[in-house]
């Protein structure tokens, strides 16, 4: 299994465990992990775990690009542009990390039910107060942009690998 695939899958497993811990904390009143952490939980599960597992397995399992398959100078286990996959990993995980840190800061002012920050108690919520909220205003759109860029690069790299079998032409032997 290529290293980048192992990295995606192991990171996904870590996110699964963290999301389950967060979910359990959200059930306990008074810990500060209230409604504002719900989007974080959903995206930790959906993007952090499932999507990264999908990315890792797809990089490993999908057929190589047709042009690379027949190049004689390619190593046998080439799975495409590894630099692009590494970039996808970095963009996705940095974007997710920024989201986990800064989204609750923004959400501590508004919630799904419309409750204000004065109505939500908890030590963690109080930690995310005014000095950091202005930074969150910049970091939240950045996190979304990084994740979107990761999706675009991954889709671009994997698109030609979604192919059927084609007949292999026998290379001409030198006379």
């Amino acid at each position, binding site marked *: 299994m290529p290293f980048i695939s192992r990295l995606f899958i192991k990171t996904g497993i870590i996110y699964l465990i963290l999301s389950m811990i967060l979910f359990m904390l959200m059930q306990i009143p008074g810990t500060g992990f209230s409604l504002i952490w719900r989007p974080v939980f959903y995206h930790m599960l*959906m993007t952090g775990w*499932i*999507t990264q597992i*999908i990315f890792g397995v*797809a990089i490993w*399992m999908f057929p190589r690009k047709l042009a690379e398959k027949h190049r004689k100078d390619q190593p046998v286990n080439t799975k495409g542009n590894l630099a692009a996959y590494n970039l996808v990993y970095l963009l996705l995980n940095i974007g997710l990390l920024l*989201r986990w840190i800064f*989204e609750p800061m*923004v*959400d501590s002012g508004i919630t799904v039910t419309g409750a204000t920050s004065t109505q939500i108690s908890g030590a963690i919520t109080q930690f995310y107060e005014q000095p950091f909220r202005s930074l*969150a*205003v*910049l*970091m*939240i*759109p950045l*996190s*979304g*942009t990084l*994740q*979107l860029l990761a*999706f*675009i690069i991954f*889709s671009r790299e*994997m*698109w030609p690998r*979604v192919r059927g079998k084609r007949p292999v032409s026998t290379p001409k032997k030198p006379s």
Partner: protein
Amino acid sequence: MIRAAFIWLLTGGLTGTLMLAEKAIPFEPAIWLLLPVHISTMIFGWMIQFILGVAYWMLPKFLKQPFRGPRRPAFAVVCMVNLGLILSAAGHLVPAAGISGTIPLLLIITGYLLILSGIVTMAVLLYPRVISYRGGY
């Protein structure tokens, strides 16, 4: 099906990015109409469609043609799921255009029924392929 899943991944990512930006810097509250579109495109359009596509490719094949089962129902699944997603997204967005009443609800229900039909059809196609080559279930 897998390529369609990539397109929905980009669509869902774009809607999610717009909503994140609106959350941080409120500029257009109507963007929150995209939330149900974001949820359905990411869950049904990206994850479920990708997984079904890979399952259709990877699960053990039958020993005689057609190796992956009848092809027309498989193509019908692609049409049903993707058309269902488009209809349900339209149903969530038409209130922004001033269309209200039963039309949005009708679009949403029709869309999700189509998605459900596609998933059930694919489940019927895949079920007999969930075997072990060593025999038995």
